[in-house]
């Protein structure tokens, strides 16, 4: 029942390849997206791709080895800490800009 593909590609490599493509997708989005919140999203996708490579290439005899698992967990926590700080900066920047804009702009904004 197994697809013939599984003979040439192990599950570990399949996930690692997915991770590699995720890194590329995220990188492309990071370069081409202008909005910082979307860039932050892109960075998180790149991070997920890296973790996937780390975990799927670190397979032990019956499960993923504890060492790469621990590294991934550390990485995920660091990523969320930085994402939170980045999101807070993005919101603060928008607030500062909105406060600096003259009130007359509000009408133009409502119309669009």
């Amino acid at each position: 029942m197994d697809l013939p593909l599984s003979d040439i590609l192990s599950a570990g490599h399949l996930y690692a390849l997915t991770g590699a493509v995720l890194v590329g997708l995220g990188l492309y989005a990071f370069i081409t997206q202008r909005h910082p919140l979307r860039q932050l999203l892109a960075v998180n996708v790149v991070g997920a791709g890296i973790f996937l490579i780390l975990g799927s290439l670190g397979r032990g005899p019956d499960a993923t080895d504890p060492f790469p698992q621990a590294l991934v967990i550390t990485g995920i926590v660091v990523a969320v800490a930085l994402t939170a700080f980045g999101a807070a900066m993005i919101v603060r920047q928008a607030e500062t800009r909105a406060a600096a804009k003259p009130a007359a702009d509000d009408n133009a904004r409502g119309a669009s």
Partner: protein
Amino acid sequence: MTFAFDLILCLMILGTAGIALFVRDALAAIAFFIAFGNLMGLTWLGLDAVNVALAEIAIGAGVTGVLLILARARLLALGDDATCSGTPLWLRLGALAACAGFVVLLAASVLSIPPESGLDRVVAPLMPGLGIENRVTGVLLAFRAYDTLLESFVLLGALVAVWSLAPAGAWPGRPADPGMTDAPMRRVAGTFGQLLLPVALVMAAYLVWAGSDLPGGAFQAGTVLAGGLLVAAMGGTIGLPSSDRPLLRAALVLGPAVFLAIGLAGIAAGGLLVYPEGMAKALIVIIEYTLFLSIGVTLALLVAGPPVPDASHPNPEGKG
């Protein structure tokens, strides 16, 4: 059969990631990002890395998702809808070529490495000395406890960094009220929060307790606690504290400080983070319980954002 599952899962991960990155509407992007995170969690389950799956579902999808939703809502209130904006064609083509080339190189490198790791052989014989079963916890809190110690301070530092963004006149103060603005919704969410907060607390405690021997641990548990706190705050069950409350500060510092103190106490036994013979399990459990509490509070406040001036606090309590 399993391979078919893996293949479909990978395709869906790539699909959701692509849509999350390139869909115009920011809300859809975040919804897809959360779906992406959940699917990543399944991937980790598929790889038999349940500890990571718990972390990914809780942190990668859950907390990051809530964080992005709230950030987008705040931007929207300021008239910024965070949609994709067009970039010049040459930039897109150039980036496409560069990224495609990069992916090919990376894929070739990845395929050149056999997906087998021999580190379990190193970890396994060391576990009996710790007295716990979960090898990931062993790596996180013993063999590489130094990483984890520094990481707990990174999390704390991120909150300090977020706080440093508080506008003039907002310090010390409370974060913007994350509560529902609509009263009936607030009631529904309030009931939910009252139910969920204790459940989250119990579940988090279970995850820490299980973390010694089964998948789980302080970070996953802390995230669950943070989730419970956030729902309770959205329903108005609890208010977010002012940044200068001594009790809050103590709760934030407790975990990292206890970890550091135990690490320093190890100097008496031979060096930083050395656990004395036979005490490893007890010390790890102490570290995990205090750390989970601090992580929960820290994450909840990280999501809530920096303090805001009191005037903009849309608190309906005054009416009544």
